[in-house]
């Protein structure tokens, strides 16, 4: 199968996913006990008002027609109106999306910066104390409830020490940087606003560490496993025999090769981070999509919840597609033979 064929197949699957996810969310919104029209109209509305809202929302149409309309809307970016904010769900999500991306990217960078060295050390010193330590840290990361770690950090660094803020994206007394990318780190730099930049970093540390620590284990494990494979290869022994230093071989030869299979896992981690942010954002009052959807759940705002599910699923599949393409570009073996 050639490179283009793979991409064509994946794009077809993407369409299938959009159809499937919209079918799932559509089915779920019809599972909701109670009458959505009644929910919109409120408890005290008369039956006539509810009936007219039902017609207005298209809820009196046959189910296949309703699904078709829903699908058409979804594809055109119309995710319905949020019952809580009374604004289009798509607009709400667009407003909150950059905060989530910023948090996820910083967290992923942290996870990679800490996870890759740990994974390498663990593989090089296999079955030695440092290996056991790294493996313990990995399992710990995977087993820690993000919301609990976040609370412990707030307790310590905000409550006891007072070093860092407990939540939000930026000091409320500072003006938000003009939106260019929506990422405060970049926007504040572009505006040359150093105080906003510093404040953003301060606000990012705790949530990014929380989210990054959870994924640190995944990264470290993957790197360790891939490094163990590489270190057994003939070229490693040959390079050593021809006089290269041990760490030169490990970092210069084995690590780049070990990173290739790890790209997939790192990509998946980014996808996981996007929605894993739900809990972290809630704890740190981080104004992203995750906190938005939790608030929506608590106020029974189903259009918002379903819109979130559609957007995140779509982003998740897109990230995976991008990762697979990157994987094929990096590794010629897959590009040609497969």
């Amino acid at each position, binding site marked *: 199968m050639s490179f283009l064929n793979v991409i064509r197949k994946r794009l077809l*699957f993407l369409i*299938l*996913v959009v159809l*499937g*996810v919209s079918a*799932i*969310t559509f089915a*779920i*919104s019809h*599972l*909701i*006990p109670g009458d959505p029209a009644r929910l919109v109209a409120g408890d005290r509305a008369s039956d006539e008002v509810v009936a007219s809202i039902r017609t207005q929302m298209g809820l009196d149409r046959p189910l296949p027609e309703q699904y078709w309309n829903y699908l058409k809307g979804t594809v055109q970016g119309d995710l319905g109106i949020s019952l809580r904010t009374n604004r289009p769900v798509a607009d709400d999500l667009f407003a909150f999306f950059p905060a989530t991306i910023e948090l996820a990217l910083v967290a992923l960078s942290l996870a990679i910066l800490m996870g890759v060295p740990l994974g390498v050390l663990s593989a090089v010193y*296999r*079955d030695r104390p440092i290996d*056991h330590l790294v*493996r*313990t840290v990995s*399992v*710990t990361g*995977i*087993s*820690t*409830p*993000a*919301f*609990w770690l976040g*609370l*412990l950090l*707030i*307790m310590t660094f*905000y*409550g006891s020490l007072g070093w860092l803020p407990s939540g939000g994206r930026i000091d409320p007394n500072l003006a938000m940087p003009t939106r260019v990318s929506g990422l405060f780190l970049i926007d504040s730099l572009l505006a040359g606003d150093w105080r906003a930049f510093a404040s953003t970093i301060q606000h990012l540390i705790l949530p990014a560490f929380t989210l990054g620590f959870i994924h640190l284990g995944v990264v470290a*494990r993957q790197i*360790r*496993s891939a490094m*163990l494979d590489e270190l057994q290869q003939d070229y490693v022994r040959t390079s050593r025999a021809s006089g290269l230093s041990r760490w030169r071989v490990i970092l210069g030869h084995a690590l780049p090769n070990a990173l290739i299979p790890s790209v997939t896992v790192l990509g998946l981690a980014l*996808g*996981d981070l*996007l*929605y*894993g942010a*739900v*809990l972290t954002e*809630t*704890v740190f009052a981080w104004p992203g999509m995750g906190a938005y*959807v*939790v608030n929506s*759940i*608590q106020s*029974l705002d*189903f259009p918002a*919840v*379903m819109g*979130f*599910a559609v957007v*995140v*699923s779509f982003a*998740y*599949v897109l990230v*995976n597609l991008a990762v697979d393409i990157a994987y094929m570009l990096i590794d010629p073996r897959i590009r040609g033979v497969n």
Partner: protein
Amino acid sequence: MTSSQGLSVPPPTTETQVIAPKTTVSGGYDWRFLLYRLRSSPLTVVGLLMIGIVLFLILFAPWIATHDPNGLNLKARLAAPSLAHWFGTDEVGRDLFSRVIYGGRQSVGVGFFVVFIAGSIGTVLGCLAGIIGGKFDSLMMRIMDVVLSVPSLVLTMALAAALGASLLNAMLAMAVVRIPFYVRLARGQALIIREMPYVKAARIFGASSWQILYWHVARNALPPLVVQATLDLGGAILMASALSFIGLGAQQPTAEWGAMVATGRNYILDQWWYSAFPGFAIFFTATGFNLLGDGVRDLLDPRQKGR
């Protein structure tokens, strides 16, 4: 696809060796051999010990708990940990130690329930897809692909929110979302097993698909599914507590770890113990199950040893 998969399958002995390192003459798994292997895996033993402690505390909760988990004592509201209240008390004076012990019944029970339901349904569906093949198989696997392409926490949240906030609904949502993992695994096993000579022989002798499913495929596909289930338990417990934390799982006044952390969040700056202890219980239990899951995978699949 089937025949090529059938051909690429290693001979039966190799396959069973990969799945279970050693079998006894009677065909059962040699658990003594596993115990022997355990000695070389200290982290697995630690995991087992941790789970042992948790299960002991949960099972004997009525004898271990120092107070009634729902007994109010407004005079001792938000008391710090002391000899009378080891983990302190909550906003209505309930003893947190007792609530954490009893809360484990909810949190750990949910994990077992979810994995059991998802595992059973997924195994049956996967084996059926593998045996019947054809359109049924394609359709089933495409549906599973779509479900798998949705991030599991998001789908679980959406389902649980639609069904209404309760622990039972959260469990159902979690189970539904986990089914595809088991379908895939069981189907893969079924595809291998159905090409085995003894299954072909059974078919020639007129065994029906159901008989083959029950007598041959389901039984032999079990070991890897058990490994998957063990690996899954820690994650299921974590997700159940996460759902409770955002208000989709257990509701007040049920003692449940995630819900307790959520309420304790309101008192986080002055009463650290309220969130800290139930959260630690989640962490401790999930670590135990994850260590055990890793260990079991290593034990049953020597290729993965030490990964």
